[in-house]
């Protein structure tokens, strides 16, 4: 089953006439996502692969409402300077699930958007993410790329995937698929220091999803997200075995340098890979050194649980 979205989720794309948005609109449509509108100010009346373009989110939502369609999702793919406003616009128009693709949004703007989303009871995934996919159900965002490539990497199954790295979301899913392990839902949560939804915040959804049997995550230096996940797993006695892949081990020797995502600068002992591995292992999260080890580790953990 899927978490967060379903094949009936009605979605708009903000910034639909941009180079990236054109791409992901075509790909999402081809994968079966219900993209029912796009927004680019000043471009109302155009269409992108048959999707009508509006000037405002409100227009996109009400035009659909007249047809009896309730828009609940938005993909935000606008330049960094316009991203915060785009998120607020979506929230003000009642959008409940917002996938923010844009990179390089300053964290204060993200924090404000996330705080506002909390007040509105909405959820933000990202920024700086590739989106969400529930194989054979729906996808929102660039995750997986063109439909044919997406189908090659993602197969329906029982493993949930969460990743701070968009690219590694697909790498992990593709590795699982090749090993015969399908996925329930995969979420690219974004690589920034502040993101709308963290690993620990996604856990209750996976926990409640009867079809998810195990979780694979991508992990890297910087931040406290893995510590938060380890804490959640321990205090909630999670039923789900978790396997993590840890990248960026070389960074432990290079404190203060920024590699990878905005969230990866190592600021203290707590956010080095060595420390994170220790914490995760203490919470019974298995840590893989190579991605290709993930499927075997998951099978091992699943077998242990059945015994």
């Amino acid at each position, binding site marked *: 089953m899927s978490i967060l979205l379903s094949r009936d989720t009605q979605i708009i794309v903000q910034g639909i006439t*941009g*180079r990236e948005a*054109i*791409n992901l609109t*075509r790909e999402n449509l081809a994968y079966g996502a219900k993209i029912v509108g796009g927004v680019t100010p000043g471009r109302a009346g155009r269409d992108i692969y048959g999707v009508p373009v509006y000037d405002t989110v409100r227009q996109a939502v009400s035009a659909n409402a007249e047809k009896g369609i309730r828009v609940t999702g938005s993909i935000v793919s606008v330049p960094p300077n316009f991203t915060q406003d785009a998120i607020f616009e979506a929230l003000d128009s009642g959008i409940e699930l917002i996938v923010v693709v844009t990179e390089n949004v300053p964290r204060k703007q993200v924090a404000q958007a996330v705080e506002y989303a909390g007040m509105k009871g909405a959820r933000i995934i990202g920024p700086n993410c590739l989106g969400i996919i529930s194989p054979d159900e729906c996808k929102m965002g660039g995750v997986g790329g063109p439909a044919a490539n997406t189908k090659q990497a993602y197969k329906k199954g029982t493993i949930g995937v969460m990743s701070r790295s968009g690219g590694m979301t697909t790498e992990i899913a593709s590795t699982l698929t090749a090993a015969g392990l399908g996925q329930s839902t995969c979420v690219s949560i974004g690589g920034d220091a502040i993101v709308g939804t963290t690993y620990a915040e996604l856990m209750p959804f996976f926990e409640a999803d009867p079809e998810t049997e195990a979780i694979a995550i991508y992990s890297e230096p910087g931040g406290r997200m893995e510590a938060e996940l380890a804490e959640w797993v321990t205090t909630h006695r999670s039923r789900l075995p978790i396997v993590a892949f840890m990248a960026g081990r070389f960074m432990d020797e290079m404190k203060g340098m920024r590699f990878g995502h905005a969230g990866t600068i190592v600021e203290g002992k707590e956010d080095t890979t060595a420390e994170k591995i220790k914490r995760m292992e203490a919470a019974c999260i298995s840590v893989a050194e190579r991605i290709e080890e993930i499927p075997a580790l998951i099978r091992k953990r699943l077998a242990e649980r059945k015994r």
Partner: protein
Amino acid sequence: MPGTFIDVRVDASVARDPEIAKKLEEICPVSIFAAEPSGVRIVEENLDECVLCDLCLPAAPAGKIQIVKLYE
């Protein structure tokens, strides 16, 4: 001159149409077409940026625009 990987050919019969030139300039996400008073001009340095989105094809009558992959 074509790019290293991509060439875009506009049929002479539509190349001077200012309407089509404008549409092409607007639709191409990587600015391969420039609308000029004399019609459409191909911006050579952008040819290899072509993302094969095919959005230029319906901007002119069928078959009048050709995208050629030089690596095939």
